[in-house]
């Protein structure tokens, strides 16, 4: 489904701030793969997401999604097939627009003809929104005319998740999307994520700093360091693996321990 081939990216080349963020990174995801990514601070996890989403074009290498080369496709043209959630729940929704309008935006952009600039939301669409919202079990279906700015962070993140998957994307990118939420809400959003991914058989990449999550969720665990993927466990090998096993394998491959304050503190 997704292939990153030999991707490299250096920021601020030739200055003291030079940073090799991606270092000949290669990754292949099969359709329906759900991979959790862990890694040290500055390992390039988010940079990899930014490259996939088209926030910048890589110095080297190429990216294909569903067989189509998207390496130099502008970001806004990829996002039809790409759902993306950020850590900050405020980034995914427009606060002064109502819940209904936000959903309409997500629905109208992903569905039907891209040239239908003057298409409007029909009553049938609104029924669909209501039904989808009721599945969140947050009572949002009765607040559809309220601006999104009135919702809590958890509610906004759940809504963003709904918007990103309303029309199933080819790839879902989750960048620590529950990290800024309180534990109970995080649990709920995570459960929703799992449900939706399973229901639609979505291909999904998820960055996390929770090692248990990384082993428990999905079918693959990826570890990153210094702009490359250093560990990729799946299938038989992954079953029965403990956090300690994972950390040991990381040390063997990289030659040093995992250095992420958030992981160490959690």
């Amino acid at each position, binding site marked *: 489904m997704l292939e990153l081939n030999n991707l490299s990216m250096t920021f601020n080349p030739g200055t003291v701030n030079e940073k090799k963020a991606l270092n000949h990174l290669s990754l292949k995801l099969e359709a329906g793969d759900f991979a959790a990514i862990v890694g040290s601070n500055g390992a390039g996890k988010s940079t990899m997401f930014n490259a996939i989403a088209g926030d910048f074009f890589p110095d080297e290498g190429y990216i294909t999604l569903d067989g189509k080369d998207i390496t130099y496709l502008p970001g806004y043209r990829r*996002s*039809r097939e790409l759902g993306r959630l950020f850590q900050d729940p405020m980034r995914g929704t427009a606060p002064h627009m109502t819940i209904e309008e936000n959903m309409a*935006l997500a629905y109208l952009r992903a569905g039907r003809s891209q040239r239908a600039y003057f298409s409007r939301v029909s009553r049938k669409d609104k029924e669909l929104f209501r039904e989808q919202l009721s599945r969140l079990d947050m009572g949002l279906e009765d607040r559809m005319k309220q601006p999104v700015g009135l919702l809590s962070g958890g509610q906004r993140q759940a809504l963003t998740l709904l918007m990103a998957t309303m029309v199933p994307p080819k790839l879902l990118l989750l960048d620590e999307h529950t990290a800024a939420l309180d534990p109970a809400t995080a649990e709920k959003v995570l459960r929703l994520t799992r449900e939706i991914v399973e229901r639609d058989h979505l291909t999904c990449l998820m960055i996390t700093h929770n090692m248990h999550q990384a082993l428990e969720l999905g079918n693959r665990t990826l570890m990153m360091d210094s702009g490359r993927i250093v560990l990729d466990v799946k299938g038989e090998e992954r079953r029965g693996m403990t956090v300690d096993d994972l950390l040991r394998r990381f040390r063997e491959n990289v030659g040093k321990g995992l250095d992420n304050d958030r992981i160490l503190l959690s």
Partner: protein
Amino acid sequence: MLYVAQTALELGFQYALVAMALFLSYRVLDIADMTTDGCFVLGCAVSVTLTAAGHPFLAIPAAMLAGACAGFVTAFLQTKLGVPSILAGIITNTGLYTINLMAMGWKANQSLLKQDTIFTLFRSTGIGGDWYAIILSGGITVLMGVLLVLFLNTRLGLSIRATGDNRDMVRASSINPTFTITTGLCLANALTGLSGAVVGQAQKTADINGGTGIVVIGLACLIIGETIVGRGAMFRGAIAVILGSILYRFIYAIVLYTKVVPVDCLKLVTAIVVALAIATPALKSWAALQNRKRRAMAERKGAR
């Protein structure tokens, strides 16, 4: 007295289109569009010149198209060439001065004498009697308001609103901000051009300096309207700009009539009102902080 009220209503409707344009650019897109002053004169000049040539109806869409072109230049400068948005508007505005002179045949003003305008033609139909100018101006403005509200709820309209509301979200979704900003600014300036066109034909004259300060007056109308009607849905915004503009013209008329403020000072008063209105949130939070500081100090002293 009735005549004063009629004039205020008529001008209110005509200039409401500028406030509507600023609602679209300043409120919805969150861009302070400085093209407005020159664009208003452009609409006026195109309209009056074409009317003088005997095309009062063609003059209206032509003025809107000219306005949209001005908006396009501003949008192009800021989206494609990286010019800061306020500067982009000022640059276009400066350039428009020459364009406007050109549109008037290299004269600083242009007047209509016996030529038919949409107003004289409408009067000859007999509709509305003495109120014909108000009915025509009001009709145009209300029509534009309805179209704008309908538009802002289409897919493209929602995309434009999202662009002004959350750039981060837009970047991560399939909206192309270059496209939405360009469309938004073209539409806003088409409205400004329309305002100039209507005003030009109503007053039978176009003047190269006729647009000075229009952007601030438009903002004043917007803010007055929002203070009364409140902010929120797009429908409310459209009502707010029309009401605000009429109210501004009434205040203007009262000032002219009673001379409570010397007429020469009106621009300054308008500027101060707009500055204060926009500064209100900052002033409020400053006052709240001072209050809290004072109370905290008093409590600490009391505790000692």
